[in-house]
């Protein structure tokens, strides 16, 4: 029985024990003068029995599956031929892999000699024993747990308290998953980056101007030692994000001002959701649009006025990214503009200024911190955006400020380095994690600053 079916069986048993425990509670209650004499509701007793049935069994299944591979492999170690043990850890690893593959799929890299076949037979036997033992153990624990809990169904058993305590642990655990995710992100990028910085100097990485991540696969290969100077990627990312912000900020801000200050309720209720559609369209769609429609159009226009435009120009990717970000800027600015107290506007009108003068000289300065926060959030979104640049920006790592040339970005390089065949220890793949670390740190800083600014601003007017 596989672990998945075992888990399903345990859950089914728990459901059965819930029903049985609930029934039992009614029976016990009838002996003691009705439900009133019991501390908890019948469903609480049912839940208690179900939890006693499922939780220990699930814990055993998970624990078993975690230690199983180590135990089996150490048992198997005894049967490895002496000459392979002598040949060093790499050969042992290979030998073990071969045996594993023999059991799983009957296909191995070397010749399946009698010794390997014997070992494979042994491995298969061990796995079988392990799965049968696990099944028996888990089912026994489930049944024993449930029957112990059934015995505890008495008027003075505080089943509700027990159940609620366990549920509360589950709630706390769920809330901590967010923390765990952050820890996981930080740990995974930092560990791999540290390994990368053992091979490549940190300052060469952040200050080097040459990016060509092709490392030699064989030691005798010539001409591809790999250089990991990430400055061209940072420049490319900044260039494209800058173009995006040039598009997004004016359009987003002006739409927000119009919607917040001028538009009637009706217009607002129609236009706002329409603008939000722009944020809901998947980025891969924008990438396709940028690569197939916008880039050729820009190239066409550029060439007709005598400019040489790359077919993967930064302008196309940046402009489309800007369109995508318009709703972020507009909805965040809309929020902060509507939060400016009406009294400030009234004061300005009272002094005789027109609506646009009020907006420009009173409302916008008052809302400025919030707007800046929103723009920072949008910028962090632009820096981390991946699909548009993967599809519409190039791979050429150049340091240029010319928006008509092809540039590459941090996210493009992460995708390029990590898709396709890869060897996990090479500097090439580890470089992707170092880039990921940079990306994470920069966007995190932008977000923290932006959220702080926005929060301060809100508090000011609340």
């Amino acid at each position, binding site marked *: 029985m596989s672990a998945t079916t075992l888990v399903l069986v345990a859950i089914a048993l728990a459901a059965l024990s819930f029903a049985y425990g609930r029934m039992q509670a009614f029976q016990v209650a009838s002996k003691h003068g009705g439900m009133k004499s019991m501390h908890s509701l019948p469903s609480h007793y049912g839940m208690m029995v179900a939890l006693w049935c499922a939780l220990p069994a699930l814990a055993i299944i998970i624990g078993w599956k975690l230690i199983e591979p180590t135990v089996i492999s150490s048992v198997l170690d005894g049967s490895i031929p002496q000459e392979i043990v002598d040949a060093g850890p790499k050969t042992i690893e290979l030998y073990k892999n071969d045996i594993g593959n023999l059991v799983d799929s009957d296909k191995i890299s070397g010749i399946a000699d009698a010794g390997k076949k014997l070992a494979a037979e042994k491995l298969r036997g061990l796995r079988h024993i392990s799965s049968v033992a696990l099944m028996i153990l888990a089912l026994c624990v489930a049944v024993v747990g449930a029957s112990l809990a059934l015995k505890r169904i008495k008027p003075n058993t505080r089943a509700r308290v027990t159940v*609620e305590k366990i549920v509360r642990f*589950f*709630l706390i655990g*769920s809330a*901590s*998953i*967010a*923390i765990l*995710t*952050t820890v*996981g*992100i930080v740990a*995974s*990028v930092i560990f791999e980056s540290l390994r990368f910085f053992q091979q490549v100097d940190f300052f060469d990485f952040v200050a080097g101007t040459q990016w060509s991540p092709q490392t030699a696969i064989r030691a005798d290969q010539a001409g591809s030692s790999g250089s990991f100077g990430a400055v061209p990627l940072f420049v490319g990312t900044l260039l494209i994000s800058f173009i995006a912000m040039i598009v997004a900020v004016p*359009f*987003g*801000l002006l*739409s927000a*001002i*119009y919607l917040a200050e*001028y538009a009637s309720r009706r217009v607002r209720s129609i*236009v706002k959701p*329409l*603008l939000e559609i722009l944020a*809901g*369209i*998947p980025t*891969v*769609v924008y*990438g*396709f649009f940028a*690569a197939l*429609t916008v880039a050729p159009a820009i190239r066409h226009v550029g060439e007709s006025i005598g400019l040489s435009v790359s077919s993967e120009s930064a302008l196309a990717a940046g402009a489309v990214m800007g369109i995508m970000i*318009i709703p972020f800027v*507009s909805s965040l600015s809309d929020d902060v503009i509507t939060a400016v107290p009406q009294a400030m506007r009234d004061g300005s009108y009272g002094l*005789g200024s*027109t*609506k*646009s*003068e009020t*907006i*420009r000289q009173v409302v916008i300065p008052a809302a400025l911190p919030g707007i800046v926060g929103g723009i920072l*959030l949008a910028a*962090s*979104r632009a820096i*981390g955006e*991946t*699909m548009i640049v*993967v*599809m519409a920006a190039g791979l050429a790592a150049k340091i240029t400020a010319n928006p008509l040339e092809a540039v590459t970005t941090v996210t493009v390089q992460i*995708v390029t380095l*990590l*898709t396709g065949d890869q060897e*996990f220890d090479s500097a090439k793949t580890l470089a992707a994690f170092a880039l*990921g670390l940079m*990306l*994470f740190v920069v*966007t995190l800083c932008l*977000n923290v600053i932006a*959220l702080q600014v926005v929060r301060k601003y809100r508090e000011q007017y609340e």
Partner: protein
Amino acid sequence: MSADKSITDTTTLVRRSLAKRHAAEKRFRAYGIFAIVASLSFLVILLVSIISKGLPAFKATYVNLDINLSAEALGVSESPDRTELRSASYNTVIRESLRELFPEASSRREKKDLYALVSNGAEYDLFDLVIENPEIIGTTFSLWVLADDEMGSVIKNGDDLTNPENIVTRMNENQLSWAKKLQDDGRLDVRFNTAFFENGDSREPELAGIKAALIGSAFTLLITFSLSFPIAVAAAIYLEEFAPQNRWTDVVEVNINNLAAVPSIVFGLLGLAVFINYFHLPRSAPVVGGIVLSLMTLPTIIISSRAALKAVPPSIREAARGLGASDLQVVTHHVLPLAMPGILTGTIIGLAQALGETAPLLMIGMVAFIVDIPQSVTDSATVLPVQVFLWADSPERAFVEKTSAAIMVLLAFLVAMNAVAVFLRKRFERRW
């Protein structure tokens, strides 16, 4: 006297500048309208360009062939068994019927051009037909088979074959003239493209479909939903109803807000390093994709669930407590049911976001070329947006329409999900 004078001076000054100021007012207003109109027209251009490119992909061109299915041409005995039928040469039969239609194709090159009019998938159609009804061997019948993508798109576009020089195609003169003859004989037909919804990916544009990607997306979303919904709701309940006001709770809150703004590709790096390299979960599988996407959508769902819980008025909680309910009973019996529409709306929006996500899935290897329909969450699979990405990279022209059509399907799903969310909000939202 001097005060009077300065007031009248100021008044005239203001009067004089009034026209200018009103013009500025109008201009400012126009900027706003222009910004909105421009943003919305970007949206319209985007949609129109995709729909106009994608519509032809929902049609497919079929060719009618007279098949003479002799046992001899198939290379099998008179009463063949299944193994014999499996290895029979169906391609020969199709080619023979093409040669019969156009005996003038004699040279090697001409024959090759001729065979290229029909899709490579034709022999599999014939194969399926024969395997199901072996008794048709030895008979002659007519069969509609898929046309190759080049001829297919010329016919679908309704290009005028009498003026071949106006047609943009890779077909050569011979092929165009044969196409014209086929059209004149009524052997060409444009029908709804069922293959697009029934096939997996293929190197042949006319055979490529989105079914594998759709199933992959469904599996991935299923995992995402079954992980993120319970966890997010539990986390939201804890933070909103139970968490003490202390530093730890603050850390969790700030953390969730920041996670919501972490670039999605970073979640892909997490998935690659932790789930694939550390826990050795299968690469390219919906289960890993689902886990990564659920970590990504958790903050979205938690934030909207908390808003929904917060909107339930405290009087409900107080009334329940007054009747003797425990803290947990207050939540599960009263607050949660009332907040459910809001929570579900947030969940659907989070899932819609997950459905459109591509970048993290590239990191965990869901970019494989998948022909087979995935059967379980641990099979190699791809999802709809990744399929769009893969097709957008393909050089064949016919893949442009496939890509646009796949985008249309993706957008249709997103619109449907958001419509459900809006409906839920409108139908069940309560104002207190």
